[in-house]
């Protein structure tokens, strides 16, 4: 239901500018690849495992090609040439390369057409596996259903994957619909993905393929018990963004944190690297039917929520266009925002309502992700519980989709088991009590909430217009988002960006582009 009297023309205009912004960046994306993208390609071919020093095989292979300066042709070109010659499986060949019994660059070159044909067949075969996982998810949901919106989304973060599984199951029994396993602090800056089940992490658990599998199994198990499919979430961000996407697609994750700019702004990852990485990762997420979450909520942890409300909307429109370039559907875009206004603000709740309703109306088909208060949470857990309650009320009143539960001990520690329980219990109480409220209320014509929402929308559109003029990279340099500025040549990971040669081979890109929307 539309309640804000927003001008559709203004919204369309915002989308037009956002598209122009993204089109400019897409030229850079199309011309480049990265070491992470190339490692993802190898992972898609089925290569897994680590060498004796614990370095993933895909890192060993890509690094060798990168050092030799031949990655511009695409790892696929060299690797498939190797496979045709040696008649080994991808995993066997990878092991031989890392053991130095086979040197990819020393093998005779097969005609390019033959390599391309073989690469295409391999890619089609690899993507079947991902498609199967997608169909599995759809079958689960068709048979036992899923949580009702706003879906209750909680976090586990013990550092030990086996403990995470226990807590995740407990949370599902308590009523959680979505479980995110927070990553260990620091993983976003690792230029490799750790391997195997892990039991030591700080403030979270390593994202590894084995850990994904353990959690998936635990949630499938508990899903049968509670009779609803439980979504599993992880973090498709940082220097290994596209590789995590591959792992998530293969292990049937359902939701991935996957922002086009978060790493640049908050992790100081180089923007030229991130833009290329986010593209390939979103192709995979799109194809796998995964819902992505964007990270605009984070802007408000550094910038002021009232002053900067429009930057959230502007960024959501940019994130949407980046996702559309990967043929993702609106239904896959969990655009993020947050309840972060200073609790001392008079009528703060009305500002929150205006912002939440605005996001809902600008993206009517998207599963909006709503984040709880964090910045103004304190050690006063009793007050914190009330702050979270207001957040819950705002969420149900404005029809948010993915509701990340606020936890009363937010400012103290990662959630204890009963913290999570109390949080789920109170959200269920609020949602149940207010279940039909949205249909009963409207906002006064020309009143505070309508005016505030219209103002934020207009400011967002002028900001987008400005960014379209200077270009997104320049805008990031000037600190347009979250008051943080990043240089286009600065940050981590720039050395992993590669200029594609005209013969660059990566059949996954056209295949996934074709399949993103069509297999939905």
């Amino acid at each position, binding site marked *: 239901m539309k309640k804000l009297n927003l001008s559709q023309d203004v919204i369309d205009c915002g989308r037009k500018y956002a598209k122009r912004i993204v089109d400019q960046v897409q030229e850079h994306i199309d011309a480049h690849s990265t070491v992470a993208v190339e490692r993802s390609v190898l992972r898609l071919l089925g290569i897994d495992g680590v060498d004796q020093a614990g370095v993933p095989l895909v890192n060993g292979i890509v690094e060798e090609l990168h050092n030799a300066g031949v990655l511009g042709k695409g790892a696929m070109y060299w690797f498939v040439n190797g496979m045709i010659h040696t008649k080994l499986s991808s995993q066997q060949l990878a092991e031989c390369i890392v053991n130095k019994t086979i040197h990819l660059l020393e093998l005779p070159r097969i005609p390019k057409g033959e390599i391309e044909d073989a690469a295409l067949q391999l890619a089609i075969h690899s993507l079947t596996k991902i498609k199967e996982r997608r169909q599995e998810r759809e079958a689960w949901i068709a048979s036992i259903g899923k949580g009702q919106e706003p879906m209750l989304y909680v976090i586990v973060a013990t550092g030990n994957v086996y403990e995470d599984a226990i807590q995740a199951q407990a949370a599902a*029994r308590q009523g959680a619909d979505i479980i995110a396993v927070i990553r260990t602090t*620091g993983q976003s800056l690792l230029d490799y993905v750790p391997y195997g089940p892990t039991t030591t992490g*700080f403030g979270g658990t390593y994202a590894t393929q084995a850990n994904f599998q353990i959690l998936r199994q635990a949630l499938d198990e508990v899903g049968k018990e509670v009779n609803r499919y439980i979504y599993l979430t992880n973090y498709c961000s940082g220097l290994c963004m596209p590789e995590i996407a591959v792992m998530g697609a293969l292990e049937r994750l359902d939701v991935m944190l996957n922002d086009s700019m978060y790493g640049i702004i908050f992790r100081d990852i180089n923007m030229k690297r991130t833009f290329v990485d986010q593209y390939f990762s979103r192709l995979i997420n799109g194809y796998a039917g995964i819902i992505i979450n964007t990270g605009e909520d984070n802007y408000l942890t550094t910038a002021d929520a009232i002053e900067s409300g429009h930057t959230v909307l502007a960024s959501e429109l940019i994130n949407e266009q980046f996702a559309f370039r990967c043929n993702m559907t609106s239904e896959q875009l969990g655009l993020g925002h947050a309840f972060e206004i200073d609790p001392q603000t008079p009528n703060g709740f009305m500002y929150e309502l205006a912002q939440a309703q605005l996001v809902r109306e600008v993206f009517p088909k998207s599963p909006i992700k709503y984040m709880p208060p964090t910045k103004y949470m304190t050690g006063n857990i009793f007050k914190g519980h009330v702050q979270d309650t207001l957040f819950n009320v705002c969420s149900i009143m404005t029809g948010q989709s993915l509701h990340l539960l606020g936890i009363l001990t937010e400012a*103290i520690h990662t959630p204890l*088991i009963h913290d999570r329980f109390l949080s789920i219990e109170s959200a269920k109480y609020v949602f149940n009590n207010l279940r039909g409220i949205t249909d009963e209320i409207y906002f006064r014509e020309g009143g505070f909430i309508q005016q505030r929402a219209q103002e934020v929308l207009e400011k967002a559109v002028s900001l987008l217009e400005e960014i379209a003029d200077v270009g997104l990279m320049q805008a990031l340099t000037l600190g347009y988002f979250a*008051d943080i500025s990043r240089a286009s040549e600065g940050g981590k990971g720039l050395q992993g960006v590669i200029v594609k040669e005209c013969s660059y081979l990566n059949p996954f890109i056209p295949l996934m582009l074709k399949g993103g929307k069509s297999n939905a």
Partner: protein
Amino acid sequence: MLDVHHVKPYGDTLNDGIVQLSFTLPIPLSNAAKEAARQLTANMGLEEAAVAHAEGISDTFSFFIVYGKCSHGVNIAGITVPEVALEVLSKKEIDEFIRTHLNRKLNVVGACIESDAHTVGIDAIMNIKGFNGHKGLESYHEINAVNMGAQVACEEVIHKVYEIQADAILISQVVTQKNIHITNLTRLVDMLEAEGLRDKVTLVVGGPRISHELAKELGYDAGFSSNTYAEHVASFLVQEVKRKNMWDNGKETG
């Protein structure tokens, strides 16, 4: 009458000792589990323990809210807590202090180091906007504040210290799971020592679980916890830097 040598919690009568607890036991809810919660509370030194609420929160966990009366008291007269000795100046006074005592800006590097990804603390102190209406160090005319953000390697901090000739380093640590903050903080001190920089800078750490005592123990000049704003930190810096007489005497005018 209040006995300062034997202070007890106050519920609604002096010395009633009332305490509220909540905790989870990793056992299914049953009458035996409730009794276990009560006995456990009694073992903590709480008399008349009463389980106000008990609830199964999964097949294998039960949650309790318990009240009891604390039998212990504490001698408040015998307690001393190390705190940062500090005269808190206003933003204006701090700028004035620097102008009076130094003919250049005060150079400050801030970072949330190593594995810690949480910028909220360092931003509250350093960003122009600050926090809760208290402007951050970047807004001080006489302070050259460089906020390096989160997950900054100690090597990068040291590099920046050389680059801007820092007078002070502000370190934030939010994540304390498995004492990771101790490891990170120690690493920086060790590296500063090795570089011969430790005595040339004022070194401050802040975070919700940081105490001044812990900071001193780790070799820092001061530790700040919650409810600290930029003016507290800046007041400490200018006074400490002056006390240590580290400023270039040739330029000192005050």
